[in-house]
């Protein structure tokens, strides 16, 4: 890698393309671990990273391949409980291997519940993916084995160590999370720009034409389900191990699936950046709103009414925003960038 970087340095460099990743790496690995408060990390960054990754996974399936799914939360649950069990039952399994095996388990379940996509489309497919939601929650509650016979089905995160380093502290969990998200997002961004990614888009935009030119439609859809569920499964591991630390099957309910779907709709379908912008909006905005509400009206209303009115404000903002920019935050971002660009030139 170092040699490549040197080679690149001697060539004319596309600074604009390198600027954003460079800033992200400095902020992500330098500033945040050094200066961020543990509140910022625990309450905002960890859920933001896990949900962003889940949204990247769902965006691959729904945004790029056009298969509507309401099963994301179930695939997160599969990832989390699989990781818990792999870690518990295979002694000395390294954490990265645990996460990969958890992702593969989620991918397997994803393919099974993706099978209806070969026959169903749109809303009908979304309804059939609800089956995953109910089935997984039921199985995890019904069979005590999954939670090592914990009476309430709760699993707790094991000690997180990679190559001898303990990652149990807030910063350690953050570093695990951010590294996982960067690696998987990098792989997904390569995938969507490859021939396989273009097959996804072809199936989404015109399935009949895709079939006639030789896109293996069935295989492509199942592949989308598999890869998407893998990523969502790993996001579930991050959610359970780095953010919540203890989690029960009911924590992965339909609300979470909807939340992830809203993230990609608000952020922008078929856009990786949109998954992050949408997750930031969904995670950060309610917190900002609640702080602001408490600050302005804290003495005047009781907290229940304040909480309810925050939800109303959030809902109204989403509606206004989607009318103004149906293609999501990502498109809004592009528009702003263009406007700034045209003003400065």
């Amino acid at each position, binding site marked *: 890698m170092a040699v490549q970087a040197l080679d690149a340095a001697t060539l004319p460099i596309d600074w604009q393309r390198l600027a954003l990743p460079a800033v992200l790496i400095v902020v992500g690995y330098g500033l945040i671990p050094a200066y961020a408060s543990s509140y910022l990390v625990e309450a905002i960054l960890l859920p933001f990273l896990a949900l962003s990754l889940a949204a990247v996974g769902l965006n691959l399936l729904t945004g790029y391949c056009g298969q509507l799914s309401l099963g994301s939360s179930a695939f997160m649950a599969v990832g989390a409980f699989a990781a818990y069990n792999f870690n518990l039952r295979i002694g000395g399994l390294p954490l990265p291997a645990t996460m990969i095996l958890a992702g593969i388990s989620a991918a397997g379940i994803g393919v099974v519940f993706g099978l209806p996509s070969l026959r169903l489309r749109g809303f009908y497919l979304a309804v059939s993916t609800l089956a995953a939601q109910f089935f997984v929650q039921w199985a995890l509650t019904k069979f005590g084995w999954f939670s090592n016979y914990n009476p309430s089905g709760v699993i707790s995160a094991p000690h997180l160590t990679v190559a001898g380093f303990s990652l149990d502290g807030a910063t350690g969990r953050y570093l695990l999370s951010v590294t996982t998200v960067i690696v998987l997002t990098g*792989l997904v961004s*390569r*995938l969507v720009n*490859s*021939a*396989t*990614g*273009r*097959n996804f*888009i*072809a199936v*989404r*935009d*015109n399935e*009949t*034409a*895709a*079939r*006639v*030119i*030789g*896109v*293996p*439609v069935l295989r492509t859809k199942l*592949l989308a389900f598999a*890869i998407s569920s893998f990523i969502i499964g790993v996001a579930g591991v991050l959610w359970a191990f780095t953010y919540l630390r203890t989690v029960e099957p009911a924590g992965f309910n339909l609300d979470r699936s909807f939340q992830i779907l809203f993230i990609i709709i608000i952020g922008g379908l*078929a856009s990786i950046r949109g998954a992050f912008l949408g997750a930031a909006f969904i995670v950060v905005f309610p917190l900002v709103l609640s702080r602001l509400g408490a600050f302005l009206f804290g003495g005047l209303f009781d907290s229940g009414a304040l909480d309810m009115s925050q939800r109303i404000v959030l809902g109204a903002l989403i509606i206004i925003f989607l009318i103004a920019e149906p293609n999501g935050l990502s498109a809004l971002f592009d528009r702003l960038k263009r406007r700034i660009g045209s003003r400065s030139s």
Partner: protein
Amino acid sequence: MIGASLGAAAYERAPEISALLAVTNPVGDRRPACLSLRPDAVLVLSGIGISFGGVTALSDVDLEVKSGEIRAVIGPNGAGKSSLINIISGLYHADHGKIAIDGQSFSRVPASRLAQLGVARTFQNLALFGGLSVRDNIASGRVHTRRASFVEHIASLPRARREDAAVAEKVDKTIAFLHLEAVADRLVATLPYGLQKRVELARALVAEPNVLLLDEPMAGMTATEKAEMAGFVRAARDRHGVTIILIEHDIGVVMGLSDRVAVLDYGRKIADGTPTEVRADPAVIRAYIGAAEGENGEGI
């Protein structure tokens, strides 16, 4: 050839005779034998029939297409032209009859293997991938040649890179052939209609098919665009030797462009021959040209 001309003659003279022939020569026993007699036929349809919910769209249609010819299929609206192309491309399954592509006989053409069989098509209503650039839309036409898995693509392994390079080369050639350089990197959905039609032709041509099915490639175009498109279709045949089946409403374009013309009316083939023969055919004049002139007057 004798059978074909005899049949055509019979169709010309009297519809009753053709009906009689269909009864006395049941489909399937003699016609496959004809296949082997015509080694230059790349596509042979025999006795094709299909109906939708009791409405017959096609009945007992025979069509034989020689290698390297531009074969037009014309007929008034609802004559069954698009059904015919959908049957050849496997999107519809015929109730009766057989389709032989390059000597392989099917009663149902497998649509997912169409590209491997050397058949490419365009659609009457555009069927492009709106979220992809012009270049990527065209590149998708070579998807049937790709073998590399998604892992190889992500890791950029040699086979994936080799395939990408091979596809890019063909795509560049096709873009140059159809003069699409100026718009190559635009999102296809942002192009005007006439250009989108051309991109669809490019996506079909880049597959280097033996047989190209064009479903109303000039529908909705201006006269200039039509002439341009006709030029591209002819050039595709002349330079690459593609056999072309052309479904078209605009009879003027068809007559100038095609080597042989089959005429459908109410799901039956009423005439088949060179443009001159077809134009002089009283059945065609009665069934199609009279009606079509009226329709063209209305701007269809």
